């Protein structure tokens, strides 16, 4: 059973074909990178997988289940996590509250009406654990909008992990980060367990080659190449169209 599988996905917006016949299959624990130039359909692909967008054709399978017709929240509850590309946090809430929101739902506590949230120590404890993991425990009480950019991305990751997903989509996790911040993020991602399957959309080739087990290359909404990093690097069409002046360093 694959962790995440999309089959013959197509998405047309009027005359524009954002995705055509895209099929991707990842096995459990795999780190799959999706690369391609801007407009290749990477964002649309993620949107279809999360459920934000309904495909014109094709199916999405999450751990063997057809989720194509399911709304966003239902897929999240089936173990699909998502780290947003631009920080999509709860700006006016504190860092701790942000993560608690994620944890409390996962623990089924969110519907509790009559007991104060602070009484649920298990929730707070898990949240603090997660913050420790991403290095944000010191800023727990800070309002999310006051965090530095790199810290906000770390919080993004923490929230995505808080729901204990089985499949995690990372939408350009290192976008807009300095080299130092990028290094930290890559380190963090490397610590994620192999029980978790990752699908990473990335532009930074360094990051891709450091993290990916397999790479899928999208171009104009179609899969033009797929394979191990070595395979893809050696593929002449990919080199020509996309990697361009990239010289592998490792």
């Amino acid at each position: 059973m694959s962790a995440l599988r999309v089959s013959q996905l197509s998405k047309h917006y009027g005359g524009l074909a954002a995705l055509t016949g895209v099929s991707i299959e990842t096995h459990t624990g795999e780190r799959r990178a999706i690369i391609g130039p801007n407009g290749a359909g990477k964002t649309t692909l993620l949107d279809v997988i999360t459920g934000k967008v309904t495909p014109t054709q094709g199916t999405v399978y999450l751990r063997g289940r057809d989720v194509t017709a399911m709304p966003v929240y239902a897929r999240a509850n089936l173990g699909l996590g998502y780290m947003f590309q631009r920080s999509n946090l709860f700006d006016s809430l504190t860092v701790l509250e942000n993560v608690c929101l994620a944890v409390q739902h996962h623990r089924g506590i969110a519907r509790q009406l009559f007991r104060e949230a602070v009484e649920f120590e298990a929730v707070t404890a898990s949240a603090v654990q997660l913050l420790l993991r991403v290095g944000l425990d010191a800023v727990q009480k800070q309002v999310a909008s006051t965090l530095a950019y790199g810290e906000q991305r770390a919080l993004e990751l923490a929230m995505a992990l808080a729901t204990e997903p089985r499949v995690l989509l990372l939408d350009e996790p290192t976008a807009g980060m300095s080299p130092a911040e990028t290094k930290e993020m890559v380190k963090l991602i490397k610590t994620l367990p192999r029980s978790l399957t990752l699908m990473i959309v990335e532009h930074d080739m360094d990051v891709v080659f450091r993290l990916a087990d397999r790479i899928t290359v999208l171009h104009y909404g179609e899969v033009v190449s797929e394979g191990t990093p070595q395979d893809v690097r050696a593929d002449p069409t990919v080199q020509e169209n996309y990697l361009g002046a990239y010289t592998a360093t490792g």
Partner: protein
Amino acid sequence: MIANYLHDIRFWLASHHQAVLSAAVIVAIVYPFAVTTYILSLGIEVLIFAIFAMSLDLLLGYTGLPSFGHAAFFGLGAYILAYFSSHSELALGLTDNLLITLPIVILGTALVAVMLGFLALRTSGIYFLMITLAFAQMLFSIAIRWSSVTGGSDGLTGIPRPTLGIGQWKYSFDDRPSFYYLVLMIFLILWWMLRRIVRSPFGLALRGIRVNEQRMRALGYNTFRYKFAAFVLAGVIAGLAGMLLAQFFWHAVPQNLFWSMSGQALIMVIVGGAGTLTGPVIGAALIRLLPNLASTYTQRSETFMGVVLILFVLFAPGGIIGVLRGRR
């Protein structure tokens, strides 16, 4: 300069938290004995509208649902109570016992809230605003047109003060002081209840929905259910306020449903401070009391309210509480 002054007030209030609260409670308890009948009536009125405003705060301030039709439930509560208790020919006049009327009001408003919420919550933002406004107007038009049941534009009169009890042990809230204590008690219970709710995980979820609903869904929340629950809860509490209003003024009229009533509640929440629960209480006091004061000087109280609203929206969007807190 003013900022320093406010900071000092804030500091004093924060450090004398318990004392202030205790003082407020004592004042509330001895109130009927210390003031004239007229001032007592004002106090009852303020408490009733405070309940109404708090319920709207749950909806708007915490969940982020801009309802412009909340008076629908306020008036509905009044009419349901009126229909069951009033001695006029149009109504049933069955009982004034709270043991019966209270559950009926709760059930009635909950039912309507479920129906309206199911429809209105399919929309959000501006659309939700328009829909709630339209639905409230629909109820208003029913109240005006269905004269045989609602008494038309005159409404239903002859509503007695409530009683409470079974068989021999029946207490009647006939005189003003005892009715005041009834209203105060209900206010305190609802205040306590709402406070717990907004601090609960459910309350946190509502706040999350207000700040970023899309993110909540990505986290797995079925946001519709949460909004729905908040909507029904807010509607029922508003209905309870309406019930008390009808019992206090001995009548239920279409004006209770009119958009200006919804608008007034909104002003109370905004001026007091949305999302704070205390703010709307202060707002209710201000909005009910100021026109009384102002009317001795001018007839233009509506203009005054509009100006106040605009000033707060432009310069103090966090309301009075926001100003005291240093405008967050």
